[in-house]
């Protein structure tokens, strides 16, 4: 069981954005994607999500080609948090979260409201529920979108089917404390039969929270493996074109980018 991408190639306007990328996301694990700006990280994420149309290669969800999975079934199994949303109308945060509740065809069931309040509470956004989404700060919006993805993947305890959570820089506008609690929540979620693929810029956080790391550069995978295998100073220095040092203390990696 896994969300597997094999040999992905994406071409946009005659430019090769992804060039033969293969990656696997396993339930119970966090896979971090790192790499310089414009490396193709977000394209990799959208390609795996099933939304990208100009794609060669194969993406399978527990062995089934995702092109053959209906959008509804796909939505039950994987949630995506994109980098930004352009919402025009004045929805409340509660209404935004309710959009993530895909288990009932119509309206707000008592179960939906109960779970939304519960998940919002675990994300620490209870006090935002009745606010207008448009009045939130960038960081608050990001926490709401993360919460929406968790609402989408909610299922009863006894349901052990694998789920997948794809996150594109989920903590980009968060302060250090919110960033930490979001990433901890992400790891907790992964331990409940959920495979997480997360794009991160902070190399220290990536090596601390991820079970495996995929370093992408110019549409290709440069390195893919356990954090201590990927976080090689020479490799990172080459890829980022900036001096990077790595220290190891008590099995923890400390990466210095200055």
């Amino acid at each position, binding site marked *: 069981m896994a969300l597997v991408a094999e040999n992905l190639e994406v071409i946009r306007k005659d430019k090769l954005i992804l060039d033969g990328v293969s990656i696997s996301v396993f339930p119970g694990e966090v896979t971090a994607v790192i790499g310089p700006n414009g490396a193709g990280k977000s394209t990799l994420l*959208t390609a795996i*999500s099933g939304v990208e149309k100009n794609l060669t290669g194969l993406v399978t969800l527990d062995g089934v080609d995702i092109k053959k999975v209906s959008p509804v079934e796909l939505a039950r199994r994987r949630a995506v948090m*994109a980098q930004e949303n352009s919402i*025009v*109308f004045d*929805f409340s945060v509660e*209404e935004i979260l309710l*959009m993530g509740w895909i288990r009932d065809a119509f309206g707000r069931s008592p179960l939906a409201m109960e779970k939304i309040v519960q998940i919002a509470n675990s994300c620490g956004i209870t006090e935002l529920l*009745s606010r207008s989404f448009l009045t939130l700060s960038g960081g608050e919006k990001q926490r709401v979108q993360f919460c929406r993805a968790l609402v989408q993947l909610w299922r009863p305890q006894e349901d052990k089917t694998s789920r997948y959570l794809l996150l594109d820089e989920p903590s980009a506008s968060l302060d250090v404390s919110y960033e930490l609690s979001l990433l901890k929540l992400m790891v907790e979620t992964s331990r409940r039969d959920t495979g997480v693929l997360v794009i991160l810029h902070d190399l220290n956080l990536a090596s601390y929270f991820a079970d495996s790391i995929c370093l992408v550069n110019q549409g290709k995978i440069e390195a893919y493996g356990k954090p201590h295998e990927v976080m090689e100073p020479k490799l990172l220095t080459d890829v980022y074109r900036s001096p990077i040092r790595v220290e190891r203390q008590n099995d923890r990696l400390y990466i210095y980018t200055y």
Partner: protein
Amino acid sequence: MTPRDTSHFSRSYRSLGFFLLTLLLMVVFGFALSKGAVPLSIIAIFDGSASSLETTVFNHLRAPRVVLSGIVGASLAVSGAVLQGLFRNPLADPGLIGVSGGAALGAVAMIVFGSSLALPETITPYSMPMAAILGAMVVTLFLYSFSAYYGQFSVVTVLLAGIAINALSTVGIGVFQYLSDDAQLRTLVFWMMGSFGRANWITVLPSAVVMLVGIVILILHSRQLDRLQLGEAEAFYLGVKVNRLKRVIILVSAVCVGAGVALSGIIGFVGLVVPHLVRLTLGVSHSILLFGSALVGASLMISADLVSRIAIIPAELPVGLVTSALGAPFFLWLIARARD
């Protein structure tokens, strides 16, 4: 749009709102049935004490007219709301963005060329609504692909493209006017003024059924329309069959607008004003918005038609004049508000 705190929109507040709107519609409906060039007592009609003239006026003129105006109002308001949702643009109104113009062009083409098509007699009464629906559909489809390709649905792109389409339909209608003979020209001019005056049950019933079915279909897509507000990709992530949803919205809103235009000419601004009022007072979630827009649209259009009937008895104002007189200042106010 200026964001605001929506916390006071509790469920009981919304229930009260819907109760009041339903009450309003019933009051307006009853009032419009009884007022006009011939004042009628509804009680007298139903207990049989009305004169035969009054009964005839009620059955053949007043009742179909009020019913038609209500349904066209609801249909235009709901179409406006779903087009705004589809384009993610609060200023999309079927009239402003050219959908009504496309419908009008289709209808006019049928008035002028319909006879030379030699259609079977059974479908002749429906040929003009069909042509109008086709015109509305072509415009919506074009606008959607154009603004998706060139402007990421920016407010300005959609409105400017709408101006261009409206200009083109005016050209087309002008050409057809030039090509038409005297009888056709008369039909055409009367039709274009926009009025519910020619309502009779034979034309009202089928169109009313079609528009009601359309409104119900659109309301059933409320949750998917909500999700579309997050963006097309996000809607797909949440399990929405985005292309299917877009096709349904374009097709059904075109049917609603086209059927309305075919029966009563171009009536502007209802699709803009009504959804805005509902969003401000009840909320933006589509299940609330569409249902509320149907109620308010019907009330507003019945009232506008009542004004057009009784303002200058025995003559009539075109109802499009009344709605535009209300709607155009409202539109200016919206623009001013968006600039704040």
